[in-house]
């Protein structure tokens, strides 16, 4: 009888310890998850900012101004452009 009780008590202790361990792991993972989520948000925001930057630098108006002033390019008049049987996209 007392042996059984002893064994049960040991099992109980083991269970309790593993519960604590599991809880600890869960919390650690949760913290990491939160951390990564935050990072994802930051990266997402950064991506938005970079897209904004990209479209500002690559804006047609800016490129046209640069092409005209810095590179001295001009838009060809329509009769100097010829379309040769292009294939549709």
């Amino acid at each position: 009888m007392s042996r059984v009780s002893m064994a049960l008590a040991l099992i109980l202790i083991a269970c309790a310890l593993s519960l604590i361990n599991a809880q600890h792991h869960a919390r650690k993972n949760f913290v990491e998850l939160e951390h990564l989520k935050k990072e994802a948000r930051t990266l997402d925001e950064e991506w938005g900012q970079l897209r904004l930057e990209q479209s500002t630098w690559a804006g047609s108006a800016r490129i046209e101004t640069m092409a005209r002033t810095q590179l001295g390019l001009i838009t060809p008049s329509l009769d100097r452009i010829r379309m040769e049987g292009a294939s549709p996209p």
Partner: protein
Amino acid sequence: MNYHSKKLLKLHLAPWRMATVGGLIMAGLAVVGGRAFYLQSLHTDYLQGKGNAVANRNMTLPAHRGMVSDRNGEPLAISTPVESLWARTAETRFSEAELTRLADILGMAPDKLKLRLQTRKKGELSVQRPLTPDQAARVAAMGVPGLSLRREYRRYYPAADVAAHVVGFTNVDDLGQEGVERAYQDWLAGKSGERHVLRDRRGNMIRDLEPVKIAQMGGNLALSLDMRIQYLAHRELAAAVTANQAKGGGIVVIDAKTGEILALSNLPVFNPNNRRNYDPQRVRNRAVIDTFEPGSTMKPFTAAAVLERGLFTPQSVINTSDGLIVGNKRIRDEHPHPSLTVTEVIQKSSNIGAVKMAMTLTPEQFCDTLHRAGFGQKPGSGFPGEASGHVRNAKTLKPVEQATMAYGHGISVSLLQLARAYMAFANDGEVVPLSFLRREPQEVIGERVFSPQVARSVRSMMETVTHEGGTAVRAQVPGYRVAGKTGTAHKLIDGQYSADRYIASFVGMAPASDPRFIVAVMIDEPMAGAYFGGSVAGPVFAQVMAGALRSFGLPPDAPLEPARITQPTLPNPIQTHKAEATKNGRPA
């Protein structure tokens, strides 16, 4: 054993001492017990609240507004977080040097900043919103008590004024005010979520205490606009408005197959990123909201109305020599011709010819055709505040009104509506519903307006407009067949037709063999001399149409003309190219 009986151990205590000590101990116990009782049961809410305040956190999960992009994913409106500076005026303590430094960072005059911070209002005060990332870092480094940075989302429009009228803008509270931002507010707006979490000593979140209310991020929106065409349209329109010293103008580009609006631009325009000099007149999307008298761009509908009833054929000859009088109005032609075929009436834009055709119809028949083409009804693009234009009631239509409507006076349309109506000619009689959103091809169900035969014959009449002898030779696009119609209308000012103020317009389509694009151009009050639709709006049409055809890579459908560029001394790459093309058996 009885200790009392032993003399040695007998304790002589005064009864008062017993009472005092016993009483003190009991009192001490009572105090502790009472305190415990007080803390545990009477004061418990407060204490638990304090505990929770340290460990529990209610967090709002911010949701930002969705991105608006063009059909190729080019961003047109993006929300991005920015820091703004807030001050608790009661807590801010500044040294004079700090104030000057802060003013320097913010780019404000120190006196102005001081005045701003001196208002003894309770609570928080927004000092400046938004800050640049650099400013934010420098303010944070100062570490002045009472100043705090707060993260907010701000909307940016990278295309600036180029797509301003379509995209619109939001106000400070992120509510759409104009354009697509307003029309699709519900879709674009995010819904912030909430979560309740337990935190540890270090401030890390360790557990959710309640189910998380997930933040719903605003949906992204892909518009039908194509920024390449939009930019081209905007640029060419601006150039034409400047060159013609016009008051304003508008341009609409539609994909005739799908009803998608590929470009829409108006002048005057505004910059949605900087609304300090907000002017409601500049914010108006005139092409959609305002109406005008279209003038001769209406004549193809008059022709279609008589053709579909078999009253005329494209070859029928109309006598246009005599001045025509309807009611008390004399109908005149700018350039009189003795007689014209129906095709030539369109080509040379004869008012007399158009009126003679329209007068063979009953008012009901005429108005029916116009209604079917969508005049007098909202074009259905979903844009906030779109105009329906005005067509007179057939029951009360006087002959003189019917006559003037035949050449586009006494009727009002919006530019978008006009472009939409031309879809019937471009699409073999079918009009596809308009859309500002990108569409998948299978979604499209058209509405029949004219029979394919009528639509095709009107289209081939309109093709002659850009040929030699037509009103819009300058609307030609090399390599492609172009169909279109010019319009030159006297402006109605205070109920009187102005003698020297005009609206010049051109609506056309290409490639005419199977039109893909419709471009409608309107120039308001050109004052630099030229005022005919063909010479003012026609070149804008040609540039934009050429660019659109090129960027979509549509094959040319016109017979190749001999090369105009000849440089005899240098080998000409274009000519060699052409020689190869003919050798390869391409259509020459």
